[in-house]
């Protein structure tokens, strides 16, 4: 910072303007991405007769009935709880296992590890529909269908490869001296990893965690096949509402569901932002 203050004022001004231009265009881009979201939220407050109109109704009478009937719909609070448990469980498990594997790939020369890593990565290439049916057959054989842990394990199959590969690249960007010094102090590799590498990689870890939670949150196919009632998640309920063959889909309600399911994740993302910045600050002091 001190170097910057010594620079000529004109240059500083220019970089400030540059930053402002960046910020403004960033905000505009963000707004554009939010247009459909805004429409969804607006729809969730409309009466069914106001949703499909020409011209589109912007100032329709506001109703909260969509939210009421949504919470009223089959088992929603229970399903929401299930979704939270499964998404968090699968993500934490995947981030721990995936980050360790990513570290092994980036830093530890192990014979065969690279091959295993590539195998793990390409396991993502299997169409999920091909996995869902046999997974169900196995789960039933073991008598573990309709349990949270089953869904958590199933979700790990697509989360771990992501986490591993992304974290590998984050670890590659770290300075090599970091764990060397710790190792010489006699700390084990595992100790060095959790005490030094993990804190410094917080931005990457948190981003991957957020991403994992999101993927697990909206997964439909495995949840549909592997659960019935006890561990059933929100996306299955939504798919059912959208495919209402009796009365037609209630778009107000669906938009309300969409809005409600988004909220916890946004709160979660805002909460973990703190660590995102903290990790950065720490790496700045240490690096």
């Amino acid at each position: 910072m001190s170097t910057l203050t010594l620079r000529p004022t004109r240059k500083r001004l220019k970089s400030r303007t540059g930053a402002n231009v960046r910020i403004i265009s960033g905000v505009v881009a963000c707004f554009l991405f939010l247009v459909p979201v805004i429409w969804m939220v607006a729809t969730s407050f409309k009466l069914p007769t106001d949703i499909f109109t020409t011209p589109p109704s912007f100032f329709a009478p506001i109703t909260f009935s969509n939210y009421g009937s949504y919470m009223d719909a089959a088992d929603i609070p229970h399903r929401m709880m299930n979704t939270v448990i499964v998404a968090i469980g699968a993500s934490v498990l995947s981030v721990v296992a995936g980050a360790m594997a990513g570290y092994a790939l980036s830093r530890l020369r192990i014979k065969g590890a690279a091959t295993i890593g590539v195998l793990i990565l390409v396991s993502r290439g299997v169409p999920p529909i091909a996995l869902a049916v046999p997974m169900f057959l196995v789960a039933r054989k073991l008598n573990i269908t309709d349990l949270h842990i089953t869904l958590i394990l199933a979700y790990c199959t697509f989360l771990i490869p992501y986490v591993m590969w992304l974290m590998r690249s984050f670890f590659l960007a770290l300075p090599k001296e970091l764990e060397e010094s710790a190792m010489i102090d006699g700390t084990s590799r595992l100790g060095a990893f959790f005490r030094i590498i993990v804190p410094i990689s917080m931005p990457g870890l948190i981003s991957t965690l957020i991403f994992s939670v999101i993927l697990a949150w909206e997964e439909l196919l495995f949840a549909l096949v592997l659960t019935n009632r006890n561990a059933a998640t929100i996306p299955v309920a939504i798919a059912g509402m959208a495919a209402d063959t009796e009365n037609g889909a209630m778009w107000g309600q669906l938009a309300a569901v969409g809005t409600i399911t988004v909220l916890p994740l946004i709160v979660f993302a805002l909460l973990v932002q703190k660590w995102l910045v903290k990790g950065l600050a720490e790496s700045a002091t240490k690096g």
Partner: protein
Amino acid sequence: MMQMNHGNGRRMRRTLIAGGVTAALALSLGGCATASNDAPAAVDGGGLGTADKPVEITMIANDGYAKQWQENMVPEFNKEFPNIKVNIEGVPYGDQLSKTLLEMTAPEPRYDIVMADDNWIPQIASTGGLLDLKAGAAAWTDEDYDWDDFYPAALAAGEWDGKQYGVPTRSNLLMMFTNKSLYEKAGLEAPTPEITWDEYMEQAPKLVQDTDGDGAVDAWAVGTYFVRDSLTPTIWQTILNSNGGKLLDDDGTVAFDNKKGVEALQTQMDLLQYAPPGASTWQFNEPLEAFRQGRLATMFTWGSVYRGTAVDPTTTTLTPEQVGIQTLPVGSASAGAHRGVWSAAISSKSAHPEASWALVQWLTSKAGEKWQSNTLGVFPARQSTLNSTPEQEWLVPVFAAIKEGFEAVDAGQMWRPRMVESDAVQQILADQTGEAIPGQITAQEAVDTMSADITKLLK
């Protein structure tokens, strides 16, 4: 290091072998699970339960009505059968058949009662998973349970290979909805069930109109399924049937690769001209919204939407006086309709067959069916119910239309193929129909391809 590596490899191999063994075990166990399908249920599985030992049964149903039943129908049932606890689990429609089949493979399946859409019974029954009701449940059937009171066409939806696996619990028919106000505005008489396809197509251009005089067209003649979907072909299948044609002969050979087949498909394709812009992407929901907004003069869709379309002011801008419901226009042979009956069937491996049948029997009895259509507005399948005067006034014209519909369905065999491959056949029809409607191929080309593909499938 080498040693370790070696050991590790061996361990790895062992794990793999273990995995393989587990897999083989799983498969062989799965293989044993096939039960003979027609054996009458030997045990009553705790009968109807007692206050001390209630029985619990589970039903797999469609999300569209699972909740309605759980909250309204089950309490009513429990007034009479307090010791049977009923769980109804909903599944999204599109995945319901696969999910049902998958669940039925278990030696002790989770579900005692299975809800089957119109053309699913052969597929599910062929796996040996369903109870033959007239044989296996005869001992528990009330003497006054009147099988012959059902419309034959409705009961036939639960029948396959000479056995009655299901009974109609929610009847539905493909119907024509009309918006009488738009007909009036176009200076036309509202259609009656006697209208023919020729008359209908002649009126269609006049129903594409500008109702508020601002110079822009804001109302159209028709809306229905146009997108690639297994229910889209049911429109031209109905037209084919009402022209006396058939999709398949009784021996399962293709019977629509002729002028009648091409014409029927062409009629559905022509409808698109009189539908709103963007209608080529329409499935079930989109025409409904447009009709409820008063933009469509006619709509071909399932009768069950009538309440939300004509009666319920929170979902529709229309009133029962404006909305007509009737059979599809008359072809060279008869009026048209297409059967969409949900049948309730019972798992042959159910641990509580008597209790399960008690529920299904109660719901489909004369009293139960009347209760259901009066309270929930669900369409009945019994002649006694359809000939009675419904408590809810809006049901009066609907009952009249359903009766005509069932008669047309029965006469023209207006249903999807009754065979194990029924869904696969509909999928083939859907693929080509979906390409023909937006004009990517001609009706003739579509019919040629469909016939070839179906012949190959059924070979």
